[in-house]
């Protein structure tokens, strides 16, 4: 019992800390690494909740693929050392108030609606194991999977199209990129 609480506490602290770290660090590279940590922590929470398949899927897809993509882009675009934020007019105050209100509200909501819940048993593998998940997926959610395939196909094609490179035409000194082809007038870097 106590062991459960210790494990849970550790994982929870890890998750929240890495999330906060992500938004606080200056370098985008460190932010990526923090987020990866967050994902792993959440994956462990999934395990605790009896969802082994989802947990490993999370690590594989999120931490393993999406974050690698983010990492590539960060590397490519150069990690610029930017300020933490340059707030717009009164944004800090308004933002602070709203966030506080949101926090208070949601904690209150959770506590009142879901307070006093019993301890749930650890779900066995029969709930979230690959076999069960796969069965339900094919039996009930066949169509969404299908559509999801299309969605991913479209996303792939879109990503390719958006970043295509056109060879230079007559009269142009260099080639153009497909979207936002005309360079806007340069703005001053702050």
């Amino acid at each position, binding site marked *: 019992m106590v062991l459960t609480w210790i494990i849970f506490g550790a994982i929870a602290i890890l998750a*929240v800390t890495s999330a906060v770290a992500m938004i606080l660090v200056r370098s985008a590279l460190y932010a990526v690494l923090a987020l990866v940590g967050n994902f792993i922590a959440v994956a462990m929470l999934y395990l605790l909740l009896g969802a082994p398949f989802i947990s490993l899927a999370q690590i594989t897809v999120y931490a393993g693929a999406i974050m690698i993509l983010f990492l590539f882009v960060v590397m490519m675009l150069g990690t610029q050392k930017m300020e*933490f934020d340059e707030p717009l007019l009164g944004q800090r105050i308004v933002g602070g108030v709203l966030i506080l209100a949101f926090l208070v509200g949601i904690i209150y909501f959770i506590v009142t609606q879901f307070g006093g819940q019993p301890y749930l048993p650890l779900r066995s593998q029969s709930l979230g194991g690959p076999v069960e998940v796969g069965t339900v997926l094919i039996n009930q959610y066949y169509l969404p999977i299908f559509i999801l395939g299309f969605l991913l196909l479209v996303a792939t094609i879109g990503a390719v199209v958006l970043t295509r490179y056109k060879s230079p035409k007559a009269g142009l000194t260099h080639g153009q990129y497909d979207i936002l082809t005309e360079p806007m007038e340069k*703005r001053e870097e702050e």
Partner: protein
Amino acid sequence: MLITINIPPITYFLGISALMFLVGFIGVTLRKNTIVIFMSIELMFNAANLVFVTFASYYNQVNGQLFVLFVMAVAAADAAVGLALVVSIYRSRKSIDIDHVSEMKG
């Protein structure tokens, strides 16, 4: 030997999820780097996924976990296209500051 292990009540899981969501939203609102903003969006997705799984465990059904699968796929697609856009914008403006793409003013 069969030991029934109990996990903490779902209240705490939901609290963690709320905090993660809030942190993600703070990141979206207050940071200037476009890539960090995207990552904060992914963080928010993650928080929502946690809620789904929590309730799947609560009701002892597997449907919540399946939804997480869909959310993950959609988030992946979204991240891909969004990053492609970021790359494209960078190529023409040489900047990934989100305040530099405010032509839709007024």
